[in-house]
């Protein structure tokens, strides 16, 4: 049973037909967006972070049909104005990744974190990002990058 959904994807209105059992990561792949990746598949690791109506969700645990009528933002939209976001630049400046697989999720979550905590403590950062895993264990640099982005 295909269902037609209409939503805003990174600022552009789009329409597609999709089955109810597909998740948001699978939907985004159909639009050649691969920044959100299904990794743990259980909402624990944050690699599939996507913003739906400006709220972070795990794309792997969110039915694709639920974005009907909503606005979806992925990591690919952060440099839409031609330059990297403050958070992206801070991650580069602090070397806050090695392989980079988890980085889109960390970057999107950090954007949300800084809206909730403009001047976050270490404790705020650790709690907010507890649902993001970095297998390269770049955590000290990630915390530095969040703080650098907050200062900028």
């Amino acid at each position, binding site marked *: 049973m295909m269902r037609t959904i209409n939503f805003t994807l990174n600022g552009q209105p789009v329409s597609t037909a999709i*089955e109810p*059992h597909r998740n948001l990561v699978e939907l985004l792949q159909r639009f050649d967006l691969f920044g959100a990746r299904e990794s743990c598949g259980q909402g624990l690791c944050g690699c599939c972070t996507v913003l739906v109506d400006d*709220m972070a969700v*795990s794309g792997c*645990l*969110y039915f694709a049909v639920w974005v009907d009528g909503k606005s979806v933002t992925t990591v690919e939209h952060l440099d839409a104005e031609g330059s990297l976001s403050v958070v992206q630049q801070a991650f580069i400046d602090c070397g806050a990744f090695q392989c980079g697989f988890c980085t889109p999720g960390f970057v999107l979550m950090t954007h949300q974190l800084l809206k909730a905590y403009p001047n976050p403590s270490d404790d705020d950062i650790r709690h907010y990002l*507890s*649902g993001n895993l970095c297998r390269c264990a770049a955590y000290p640099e990630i915390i530095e990058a969040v703080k650098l982005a907050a200062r900028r």
Partner: protein
Amino acid sequence: MIPFEMVEPKSLKEALALLDPQESTVRAVAGGTALMLMMKAGVFTPTRLVCLHGIESEYARITVSAGELRIGAMATLSELERDANVAARLPVLKRAMRTLSNVRVRNVARVGGALAHGDPHLDLPPVLAALGARVSISGAGGDRELPLEQLYSGYYETVLAKDELITAVKIPAQAARKAAYMKVTARSADDWPALGVAVSFAFADGAIRDPIVVVSAATEKVTRMAAAEKVLHGAAPDDATLARAGDAAAAAAAILTDAHGSAAYKRELLRVYLRRAVREALGDGARPVRQ
């Protein structure tokens, strides 16, 4: 995942009619974060999901009336976390939210789903049970209300009929009652808990009054510890009383051995953490002991 039908009713009545009293492959879905895990694991294969988003606005409100806090079942856990009335009246609930899963799950998961799921490892049921919460349930046959701990009949089992839905949870005025929730994770800090202990009580003239002690995670369902409550009621929270309360709970609780630890280990955790939970409640959120 295997294909299924998703229907989107616009009213509670319509939603109840789309559920099936006989068919376990038809279920309601609110946030879906727990249900999708069961579907991915292959332990639940729906033929139809009744999506409740269309009736959200009416059933997502968090309101206070005559001191009672009413949380609509479709409120997200994030809405609970950010609600000013929850923060002011039930700080234990707000604190529990911070380590409940993660931000993305809290943004999507609904209060009603967290209660109906029946997983004894979840944080919300023991905290709400210790606060004396009651659950409002609607079904094709009418409405009913239950004390929260009576919702659970076993491991992932509730007394909800297949065509009933939780509509709200109501928490009575706490007046000066003190409360705390502690969870113990045996592996990483964000693991599922080996034990949860929630307590609330009045405290007057140096003595505990009308305590509620709830154990979760180590038992197959959220369970009130009547024997420990009896020890604490009317007693001063000194070391000897807290040790006796811990022993009473450890003797009474039906504790399971699983990947989070042996029953003997969790029984010892219960002795220790019941004491710590009472002390934390007395500290009124000062968190003298970090989990």
